């Protein structure tokens, strides 16, 4: 019996692998065709702009929206039949810094990109940044928020959103201001993203005279009872969690289950995802507040430019713009504007980025010499009726 089944299994496995392989090849083929056809027939010259980030890895959910936003810009741009068309080349780093470096080499040497959107995360940005700097390729990230990235003296690196040391104090001001919390419990997940952010919140809260209690949790665990018990004992007015949505949702659920009902729950941009509501349960998540340096166009916006973007995004991807979509759109717009102005080489584009001052969807886009964007707005979002709604800028928002 056994050999027969084993043989059958082998044939089956080989068949499945082959079919899937062919199917995948087919996908790649159809993807590539329009771009090739377009470049050879209509326009005489095409430049390549890369998009690097975690497109298939564990945190792809916060990288695909800015990719979509960027694609939108270049599709619109190419439709206007410009002298120089743009081909968006995607580099899927899966958020892994050591893979990102090899992909950056490929982008520079083989694909000869004139600019790069990304890398999306701070870890990969730290390793890819020096490579781009030496190759003199301009880059604009739509989602890397680590503060230290701007301290390297890079001339070709930019990001279109404020960093964690702006986000943390922004949220802390909101906690100490409109929320008027006196006793705050700050938790971090010890990650390279969550801890610096939580530290920034702690520092700012301390200057505002709030009583701050600290603790950390390990997001790989599922039981946070040691943290939850400490929170229950400290009876805070507000809780801030620096970390990603999966842990945040779980933490919020366990807190509410433990009877910590009245304390306002805050988190940062890593928790700005429907996953927070799914993880905590709609009832527990109701009223939770999330700060983010990103601007998400909610369906009820009235501003014509933002509405135009949101509608175009929805038409193209049949989904509302999500986290960092507007930032991805703005970053790509900068490149598109540079090309419109006749800059097609990396150093000319970089010079253009240095002088750019345009009204984007998310903010006025203007870069400081160290690559940071000048606008420093942090937005506060709140879970209302099981959905994430925009309250407004942290400096202006009021609790409803």
């Amino acid at each position, binding site marked *: 019996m056994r*050999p*027969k089944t*084993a*043989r059958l299994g*082998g044939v089956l*496995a*080989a068949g*499945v*692998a082959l079919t*899937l*392989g062919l*199917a*995948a*090849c087919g*996908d*790649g083929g159809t993807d590539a065709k329009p771009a090739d056809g377009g470049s050879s027939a209509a326009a005489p010259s095409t430049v390549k702009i890369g998009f690097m980030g975690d*497109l*298939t890895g564990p945190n792809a959910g916060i990288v695909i929206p800015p990719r979509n936003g960027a694609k939108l810009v270049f599709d619109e741009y190419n439709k206007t039949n410009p002298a120089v068309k743009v081909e968006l080349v995607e580099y*899927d780093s899966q958020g892994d*810094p*050591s*893979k990102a*470096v*090899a*992909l*950056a*080499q*490929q982008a*520079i*040497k*083989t694909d000869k990109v004139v600019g790069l959107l990304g890398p999306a995360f701070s*870890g990969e940005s*730290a*390793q890819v940044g*020096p*490579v781009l*700097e*030496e*190759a003199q390729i301009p880059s604009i990230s739509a989602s890397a928020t*680590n503060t*230290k990235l701007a301290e*390297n003296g890079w001339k070709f690196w930019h990001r279109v959103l404020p960093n964690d040391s702006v986000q943390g104090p922004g949220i802390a001001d909101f906690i100490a201001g409109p929320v008027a919390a006196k006793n705050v419990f700050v938790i971090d997940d*010890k*990650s*390279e*993203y*969550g*801890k*610096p952010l939580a530290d920034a919140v702690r520092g700012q809260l301390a200057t505002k005279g709030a009583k701050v209690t600290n603790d950390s949790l390990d997001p790989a665990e599922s039981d946070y009872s040691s943290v939850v018990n400490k929170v229950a004992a400290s009876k805070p007015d507000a809780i801030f969690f620096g970390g990603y949505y999966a842990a945040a949702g779980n933490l919020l659920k366990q807190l509410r289950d433990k009877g910590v009902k009245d304390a306002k729950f805050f988190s940062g941009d890593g928790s700005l995802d429907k996953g927070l509501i799914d993880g905590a349960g709609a009832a527990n998540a109701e009223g939770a507040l999330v700060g983010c340096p990103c601007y998400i166009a909610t369906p009820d916006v009235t501003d014509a430019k933002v509405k135009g973007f949101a509608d175009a995004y929805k038409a193209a991807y049949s989904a509302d713009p999500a986290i960092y979509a507007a930032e991805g759109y703005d970053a790509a717009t900068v490149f598109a504007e540079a090309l419109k102005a006749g800059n097609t080489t990396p150093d000319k584009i970089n010079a253009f980025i240095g002088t750019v001052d345009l009204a984007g969807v998310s903010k006025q886009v203007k870069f400081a010499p160290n690559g940071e964007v000048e606008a420093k707005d942090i937005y506060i979002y709140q879970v209302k009726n099981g959905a994430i709604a925009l309250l407004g800028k942290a400096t202006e928002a009021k609790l409803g």
Partner: protein
Amino acid sequence: MKQNLQARFREQFGRYGDVMHDRWLNTPGWQRWILYVVLIVGALLLPSESIGSFMSPYTDWASILFFPIGTYVVLAIGLNVVVGQAGLLDLGFVAFYAVGGYAMALIGTELGWNFWLILLAGIGICALSGITLGGPTLRLRGDYLAIVTLGFGEIIRITARNTDSIGGPNGIRGIPHPPSIDELNVFGVDLYDLLGVKFFKYGVLDPRPYYYLLVALAVIVIILVKRWEKSRVGRAWAAIREDEDAAEVMGVPTFRFKMLAFAIGASIGGAMGVLWASKVISLNPNDFQFLLSATILAAVVMGGAGNLPGVMLGAFVVAWLPERFRGLQEYRMLIFGAVLVALMIFRPEGLLPSRQRKAELKEGAGGMGTLGAEVPGPESHGEEVASK
């Protein structure tokens, strides 16, 4: 004799391998050396663009030759000493790679030592950490040892994440490169103009100088490991792998030799960590996940534990395939997995198995030395195991 296709393929492929192996064993020394030199020259010519367009159309070929391919190969050579030769199942090998990486990062940024000095110091530190881990744990065997080493790998990573003085979760940035040699003149001819490669200019843009450094490291490591394997030490390792109790009774100080294997494996992993850290400039604890240990172990087992060329081939395949299929996006891991499964069906003792280990497998001693004592090998029959 009724045989299924799979077994027939296995056997024929195995016989062909045996013929080749016999011929190799009878080759005179000078002919072998010719092949070695050809291989080394071939390795130096590998990062050529003409091969690169086929080998990795989606990633820069020279870059992936350093990481993951070259890195995996050296790590696999190191792990092979522990798993393949001494038969100690080590699931935390990434820890030593991490210790080497952190040694480079810390000494380089804090003390500003020269790269070559740090390389030596890193090797020493890693050997010491191998002994530190081995001391209390090598009394354990098989799966118990696997669990302890698995724990050690995670402890290193989590400690690094929680220790703010070494950067905590942010890791360390600004790690110095090896010192560059800008001028390279041979008889008045500038080699740079001749070959277009700055062999000793260590920057961020060109990965090739690091790759050449890695080839040099690999050659040294291979020579050393091969010498150890052929020496009394290697025979002691083989004895321990086959039957630890028998070896002990026969007067082999098993504990000392197991420690030695651990320390040597750790030093090789550490040397690679130092080299890697000096290339990437910044590292953080997330670079040292358990998955890396598992992948290297898979490379060793798949290539043929105990046989150096096999192990290197295995590491190459494991590192290269996912990059080769990068264009298939979500499917690439599926295809990679399918290839691994196919390999394990048709070559259960590895791509290029060690003869000795193959014989052990056939006898029913399983794959991992003492770990598999009760597990039948792929070609053994039930009654053989039952009689043990």
